[in-house]
């Protein structure tokens, strides 16, 4: 092993790029080996904490546990949501169609009534 090949930057504090922080947290929070400490924050606690901070940790499972499920309703991210969106659209269109049909119906009835009145008038 040649240690010289492996030159890590001695400090990363100058770089405040948010995704850089997300990547560091991703590793520092729940990667690495766990050797039961006497005092520790539950990994799950840290996760929930971090979700609350809206930094990044939003795995499907843990985030859902925390009640964060926006992706399930975003058509861009979920094919199920896409289908739902289409179904919803369909339902709305049906409703509009129904409304239009009943309007047409009542228009027809009105004109029918008008015609009858006209006919009755003519008969007289």
């Amino acid at each position, binding site marked *: 092993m040649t240690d010289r090949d492996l030159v890590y930057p001695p400090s990363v504090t100058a770089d405040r790029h948010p995704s850089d922080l997300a990547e560091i947290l991703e590793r520092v*929070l729940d990667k690495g080996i*766990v*050797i039961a400490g*006497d005092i520790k924050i539950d*990994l799950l606690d840290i996760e929930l904490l971090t979700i609350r901070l809206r930094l990044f940790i939003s795995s499907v499972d843990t985030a859902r546990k925390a009640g964060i499920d926006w992706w399930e309703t975003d058509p861009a991210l979920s094919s199920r949501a896409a289908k739902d969106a289409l179904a919803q659209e369909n339902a709305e269109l049906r409703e509009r*169609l129904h409304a239009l049909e009943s309007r047409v119906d009542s228009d027809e009835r009105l004109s029918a009534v008008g015609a009858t009145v006209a006919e009755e008038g003519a008969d007289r």
Partner: protein
Amino acid sequence: MTPPEASTLTYAFAVCHGGALTALAALPGLDTGASVRTLTAGPLTAVVQDVPAAGFGEEALRRRLSDRDELERCARAHHTVITAAAALAPTVPLPLATLYLDDDRAREALGERETSLLTALDRIAGRAEWGVKVYAPAGPPPPAPEAAPADGPASGRAYLDRVRTRQRSREQHHTQTLRAAERVDTAVRSLAVAARRLRPHGVEVTGKHRTHVLNAAYLLDLGRERELRAALASLRRDETDIQIELSGPWAPYSFADGGIADGGLTDGGTADERRTSGRTPS
């Protein structure tokens, strides 16, 4: 409430094997005034620091990490020490906030895990972790302009068609980017001794303009950086639908549990193992 017995706790950053770690003393660590030091436990060396019990007890720690700035400060400090140690010796990183009541307890904990730690250290010696992230830019522009509601019921069918087409092309686009991500994974995997999938980041990090489709970590021999970069350059030329980002070298955070990919380690599952899918290159 009984006062704590000791005024300081032992905060552990990492476990190393061999190497000259004296340079670490120059690091501020968690900036508690105490210097970063090493603690010998049999064949292992822990990188530790004394921290005030008042500031790092369970409750204090929880409060501390609830504060975004403080969390960032601690995470960066923790990471900096691990990174520096990994440059000097094979290093197993410990998660943020690994604390022992005193040095003896730390030694004891390390002793209990000596065999598995040595296995892990052996595995990561001479290797580094690289992160590869693949993003899909937000979906393609819809084939037809957004249906104007003013079109009215007359064009209802056309509107539905447009919606369907848009949806289909979005799904196709997503499938294509997932396949492209798989090709990236396969290519990098072929250079690595181990690979792991990490959780993709949410929009809070990526921004709405792109979706994270692959978040993977690879353990590579130290000499293979050039090959890795060449492979990614070639992938970037071929896969024009996706963005590929490389980060590293990292201390082997994702591979610290040693033989996951080999199935060689049976320490009882950590939460980590349930969440990530460690896959073995075939």
